[in-house]
């Protein structure tokens, strides 16, 4: 069985839960999202989108807005660099 998007989990939630049987040696209730998640959502996706938007604005010659976006990009890049995630 394959699902198409995250909405499926809301629509077919109960059905899916019936599929996932826990074994006796496991804790009674399955974990909540926060107990599983340990990667912090980060900035590359945001950065990518901003850069695309910047390009669009430059094409439209909307320089004022573009400057704002550029500052935002720099801010995120500095943040990433501080974490040592960015090469340059």
């Amino acid at each position: 069985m394959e699902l198409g998007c995250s909405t499926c989990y809301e629509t077919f939630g109960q059905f899916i839960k019936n599929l996932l049987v826990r074994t006796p040696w496991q804790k009674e209730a399955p974990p909540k999202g926060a107990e599983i998640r340990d990667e912090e959502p980060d900035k590359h996706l945001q950065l990518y989108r901003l850069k695309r938007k910047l390009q669009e604005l430059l094409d439209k010659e909307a320089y004022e807005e573009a400057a704002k976006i550029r500052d935002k990009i720099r801010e995120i890049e500095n943040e990433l660099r501080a974490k040592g995630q960015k090469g340059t």
Partner: protein
Amino acid sequence: MNLGQRAKRAPKWWGDTTSDIPLFARAKLVRNLKGYNFPLKASDDELEEVCEIITYAIEHSKKLKEFTTFRGEELSPEDRNFLWERFLISKTFIDSPKGKLVAISPDEDVSVVVNDRDHLVIQSFANGLNIREAYHKANEIAKILGLEYTYLEEWGHLTSSPLEVGTGLRVAITLHLPALVLLRQYNFTVETLTPQGFIFHNLWGTGTTGYIFVVTNALTWAFREEIITPFEYLANALIKQENKAREVMNTHLADILEDKVTRSWGLLKYARLLSEEETWTYISGIRMGISMGLIFSAKELPRFTNLLLITRHSHLEKRTGRKLQQHIAEKERAELVRSFINGMEAGS
């Protein structure tokens, strides 16, 4: 990356140097990007955008820069088969490479597959039973990529298969269990452990061919420790059982055992045609023999483990640089094995 060069040796994580029973541990993390449909439902444009985003993230992080990236369409069917034999991509990637991407670390211990069944599948390998090492490597890559994954408070990470929801983590250990199979204990073990949430399957082939088995967790919607810790116990218990079975064979069926080992050696040394299945069975016999001190010295073990992988069909094709029919491949395989054994005997 020159695939032909790679075909001549197995990656570093392949096999354990001290024992023939554990081969390698694998951890697989499944993730999907927020705001995009899963690959099954996504349009071509969406898939392309997901590809671009992940490529961007790979190119812009220090650690991942050295990864080699291949687009699915760029790879020939032989290349895809070769990568599959090395466990870097899945069967579905071979059949439909369009819109997919794979990034491979220089040591081949991590592979990142994009737009297969899910947007992102991070696989990582480690020697022997190092499940935790494999998990930490995979998790680190998920962090470094720094992407925002689709996630619900109730479920955890969402995946296209509901059987991988939650942690999206599947860990696996690979074990070589010939004595359990020969003493007909293997099926009993599987029947006992399957209801406990473990899935057994053969690493290659069907049934018990080659005697190498993979055990994975059935449930991913669980606490991380609930997934990883049982494997550490399970691995040790299975290894203990296998060793016990070998002891029993050694005490009560010594002639059968000895025949199995020496016959394997003789066939590998003198056969002129070797199919894949035969080669696995005979190498299995020799590896068991080495571990039990019946044949060769212990330092030869890694070389035979290596031989298991490099005699696979696509590996032979890459090595010879041409497409091989079944019959020719069997001949090439036998030649390779023979020269290997002769070289080894001359050296020792």
